């Protein structure tokens, strides 16, 4: 089967710094793939390139929608176009819309799947009203699925930390992606929250059939969740394989030497 995401020879330079160096990577439909590496290895930069926030200095990025089977080059797309194409992400440093309610945060996720414009908003014709109702309902359904329903009308900034991380995932889910990019979703979570996250991610894959590409430092989580793992260091891929293989890989152990393996 053809991969739904393919990265070939990706490079990203910041001034003199090469943050990503000829990276190759592919992800198949329904997989959970992890990207790990020490801090500053370039993991987040990979996400930023994929989602159009950075313009890569070189390489190819292709996404293939499992529904249509159509391949689409991601290079040069704007972030919103990437999201429209079915890739949605979360941010390592939480970036919620703090003074909007939890539900409204999700409703923003529905934006790119709906169409009401200014005139519709002013006249509030039937189509707009129905669409608005649908947005609210769909968003609420997403919240329930992610387990945040009891917070619906809270301001996002007032949520506990763990719930904010989940809200980021929920917001991304609301855009109907086929590939979900999670940037350190467990960062700052306590062990119980991390366990719940583990279940949530598996649930997303099993129930919604969404493929997951995640960056994570919590090795226990990575090892238990992932089908495959890529390891990067100084922007270069130093290993790839199944969790057991990665655990034994000498290059990986060396890169992580001195780094806490399960921070």
């Amino acid at each position: 089967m053809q991969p739904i995401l393919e990265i070939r020879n990706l490079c990203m330079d910041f001034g003199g710094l090469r943050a990503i160096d000829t990276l190759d990577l592919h992800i198949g439909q329904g997989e959970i793939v992890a990207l790990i590496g020490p801090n500053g290895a370039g993991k987040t930069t990979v996400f930023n390139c994929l989602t159009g926030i950075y313009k890569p200095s070189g390489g190819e990025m292709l996404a293939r929608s499992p529904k249509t089977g159509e391949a689409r080059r991601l290079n040069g797309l704007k972030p919103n176009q990437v999201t429209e194409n079915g890739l949605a992400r979360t941010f390592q440093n939480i970036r919620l819309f703090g003074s909007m309610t939890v539900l409204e945060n999700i409703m923003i996720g529905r934006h790119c799947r709906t169409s009401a414009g200014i005139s519709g908003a002013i006249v509030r014709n039937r189509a707009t009203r129905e669409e608005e109702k649908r947005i609210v309902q769909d968003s609420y359904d997403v919240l329930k699925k992610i387990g945040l329903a009891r917070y619906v009308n809270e301001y996002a900034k007032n949520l506990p930390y763990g719930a904010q991380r989940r809200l980021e995932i929920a917001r991304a889910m609301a855009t109907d992606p086929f590939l979900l990019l999670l940037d350190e979703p467990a960062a700052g979570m306590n062990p119980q929250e991390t366990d719940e996250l583990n279940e949530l991610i598996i649930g997303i894959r099993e129930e919604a059939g969404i493929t997951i590409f995640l960056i994570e430092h919590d090795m226990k989580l990575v090892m238990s969740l992932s089908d495959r793992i890529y390891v990067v260091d100084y922007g270069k891929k130093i290993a790839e394989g199944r969790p057991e293989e990665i655990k034994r890989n000498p290059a990986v152990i060396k890169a992580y030497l001195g780094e806490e393996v399960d921070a």
Partner: protein
Amino acid sequence: MTLGEIKKSLLAAAWFMFLTFPIMVIKVNTIQKTVEWHWERLLYVAVGGFVFSFLWRYFLRRKQGGRRPAAPVETDEPEAVPAFQRLIHDRRFAMPALVVLGLFVLVFPYLFSMYQVNIMTTALIYVVTGLGLNVVVGVAGLLHLGYAAFYAVGAYTYALLNLHFGVSFWLALPIGAALGSVFAVILGFPVLRLRGDYLAIVTLGFGEIIRLVLENWNDFSYGPSGIANIPRPKFFWFDFSLEQSAVFIYFLMLAMVLLTVFVTNRLKDSRIGRAWIALREDEVACQAMGIDIARTKLSAFVMGSAWAGMAGVVFAAKTTFINPASFTLWESIVILCIVVLGGMGSILGVILGALVLILLPEYLRAFSEYRMLIFGVVLVVMMVFRPGGILSEVRRTYLFKEGLSKDGSLS
């Protein structure tokens, strides 16, 4: 009020006395070679500096939650909805209040002199421009410092079209709005890609360019002397007396305020409105959630400018005379003050802000000299202590049948 606090305030007072000494105390005349000393001012500065420093630190502590709780325990101050805000959201109170207010507004022109009516009309024009700018700055978070230029576009549209082609006020109204939008697109298309602070400078520059062009292009705009004898609006073929006309414009403005409130309110509670707010909150996340920020910014910008254009037409019709001096940067900043003081994004707040900032200086003549000085203070103090404005925006809450039955905590 500890000794340490007093000491700090005294120190601050001394610093302010020292700082303001040359400019406050000494006035020189370099031609006649005379020097005037105003020592008494030093005393004002001392007292003012002491009080200011004391209050400043008190409020700063309170804002930061105060490590030393000087005030009686006041938890979560910013989160708690103020009593006033609860009142206006309580239907039992809001409905009668609205009725009384409505009646007062309707009989206002018959109770007060024409002078008062004119002032109120001016205030209402500011309400409309404030609400328009609120869409751009308050809701979408785009700092627009050239708003007066779009106001000028509207005013000159009516004045010039009327002068050359006899276009009536009613026809000029939509044309003014349309031209405001066109200018917004022309300016917005290239500059809205810019980061927020560059946008502020570019819009400021654009505003100045428009003003300078109006001032210097005599053949087109009649230069600094402006255009006079602009006709007041007619109502069908009625010919109003001066007084009737003032009342008519008052009601016209009132209708426009209602229209503006209606439209901006609906916009805020819509798909586009949410996108505007998300844009203000976090541009990167907004874009990553699939929102085309270029289009979203442009739509907010155009919306706000259309309103300025329309208000400009009314302004020209009301004053019957316009010249570039009415559309300086300060005009833009006054409108910005209204938005900031009232509460960015809050419609009721902006209305209150406009009334306070425009009516107060009118009625307190003694203090009108200090108007701009106070506006400056308002901007800084509001940003430091209450960035949400006097009435911060309360987000709408959505209700669910399902959610209610399942989860008791939902309201």
